[in-house]
């Protein structure tokens, strides 16, 4: 019995270590104290009020949401179309193109950020939300290709062929036979790409001189002081992320499982 308990105990310690930061930050965000301390001496919502009443924080939040939504959408659409295109590519081309689409996940963001920044300087498109959206879409792309690609490989190609045999045009066959089973994976991929953008710091840091995204605002704030408002923002952030990622993960898992049963 002893030998069975020890691994469980060590595993629990590991999980505790992983959860430790949020276990600290969440209670602190409800502190009523003016200064940071643990445990808080009084409780309240003053840091949430500070966040929701500060136009600078709110503007940064909206900008991040807007950029992430557009980047996620572009990545999900381009990536899904890309997965379908990849499957129909001759084998000798496939590895190279897949590599190109997946590489942004491996190359450090700071390198991509520097390149996008240099390019944007040349074309005078710094401080442009459109450039930021496209750059974020590119670093979200690998996740879409991986998630939708895994689901696509498990779809039954005879479905689309059957639709064609029964007289559907290629587009209609694709839309009615291939897309529906992929829908949960596409949605999950969108959520992942959304958060890749929502959480991205360095590209936005280089590119957006005047208009900060939420991570840039947090970064600029943290370098000078540990502001308790960030505890409130962080907790809010974590709850929203956990809910969305939980949804994405269950969608992805269900999509894979359902198709595995064919």
């Amino acid at each position, binding site marked *: 019995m002893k030998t069975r308990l020890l691994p469980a105990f060590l595993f629990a310690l590991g999980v505790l270590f992983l959860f430790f930061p949020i276990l600290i930050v969440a209670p602190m965000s409800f502190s009523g104290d003016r200064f940071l301390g643990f445990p808080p001496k009084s409780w309240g919502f003053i840091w949430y009020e500070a966040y929701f009443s500060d136009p600078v924080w709110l503007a940064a939040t909206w900008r991040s949401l807007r950029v992430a939504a557009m980047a996620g959408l572009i990545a999900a659409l381009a990536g899904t179309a890309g997965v379908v295109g990849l499957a129909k590519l001759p084998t000798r081309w496939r590895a190279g*193109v897949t590599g190109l689409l997946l590489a942004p996940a491996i190359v450090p963001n700071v390198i991509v950020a520097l*390149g996008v920044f240099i390019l944007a300087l040349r074309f005078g498109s710094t401080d442009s939300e459109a450039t930021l959206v496209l750059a974020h879409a*590119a670093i979200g792309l690998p996740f879409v290709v991986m998630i939708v690609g895994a689901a696509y490989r498990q779809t039954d190609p005879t479905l689309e062929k059957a639709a064609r045999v029964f007289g559907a045009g290629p587009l209609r066959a694709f839309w009615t036979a291939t897309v529906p089973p992929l829908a949960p994976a596409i949605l999950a991929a969108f959520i992942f790409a959304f958060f890749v953008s929502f959480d991205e710091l360095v590209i936005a840091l280089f590119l957006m001189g005047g208009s900060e995204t939420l991570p840039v605002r947090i970064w600029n704030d943290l370098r000078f002081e540990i502001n308790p408002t960030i505890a409130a923002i962080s907790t809010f952030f*974590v709850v929203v992320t956990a809910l969305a*990622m939980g949804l994405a993960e269950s969608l992805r898992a269900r999509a894979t499982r359902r198709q595995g049963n064919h």
Partner: protein
Amino acid sequence: MRFANRLTLLPAVLLALAMFAVPVGFVLAEAVFTPELSLAHFERFFARPAYLSIFRNTLFVSAVVAGICLVLGYPMALFIVSQPPRRRPLLLFLVLVPLWMSILVRTYAWMVVLGREGIVNGALQWLGLIGEPLTLMFTTGAVYVAMVQILLPIMVVTCYTAMTEIDPGLVRAARVCGASPFAAFRKVFLPLSLEGAVTGWSVIFILSMGFFIVPALVGGRRDVLLGNMIVNQVGQANWGFAGALAIVLLVSTVLLLALVRLIIGRFLYSPREMQA
């Protein structure tokens, strides 16, 4: 029709070219052509002991963080695999949840935890173990703790995936043939899971090489990594030198990984042949 099929690749390929491949190409060009064609930026980097020590530090910290993650993550993955299959997704989920928290948020949390008035110091003082608060923030130790906390889930998942692909019958066969549980683990399970462990180490190593948030916020003045240097150089508008640093980062990562594959590959393939 075939043309139309390939056309669906166009948006993704254009996006990856315009926002990834071309920009990275520009980084290389900037490093070599600014202000004129020369390797001056690289010479400057390799001639200054201060820069070289940052380079060595980046390699060292990344290797050690990946190593600590392996030591902590492998047993955690092993525990999940040892559980009944119905319970595994929940345990994996527990490990994965922290991965969804922003790196900035998690680093902020460590700033709160490790600060002079932070809870570690608070608890130690309350227990009477220390009189004065310890300096935990702005230390190399803080960088390790925060980086390991951020990257550990990735190691657990990589090891877990590799372990689920091992046929449990092999371990059972070893036991039936008289091997002790430890011998069965060491001679059968461990070699078969080694490729996953090396992959996990490599992935964490790559990710660590590009880190800059954690060292900038919880590290001391000596804990600067290449990523921090690149960000600082961009801040000072030295794009040519920043480009050279980026190239050093990229090339050294690729070379080191190739080296690891080469060395490890030698004894990685023998268990595979055993399996076949």
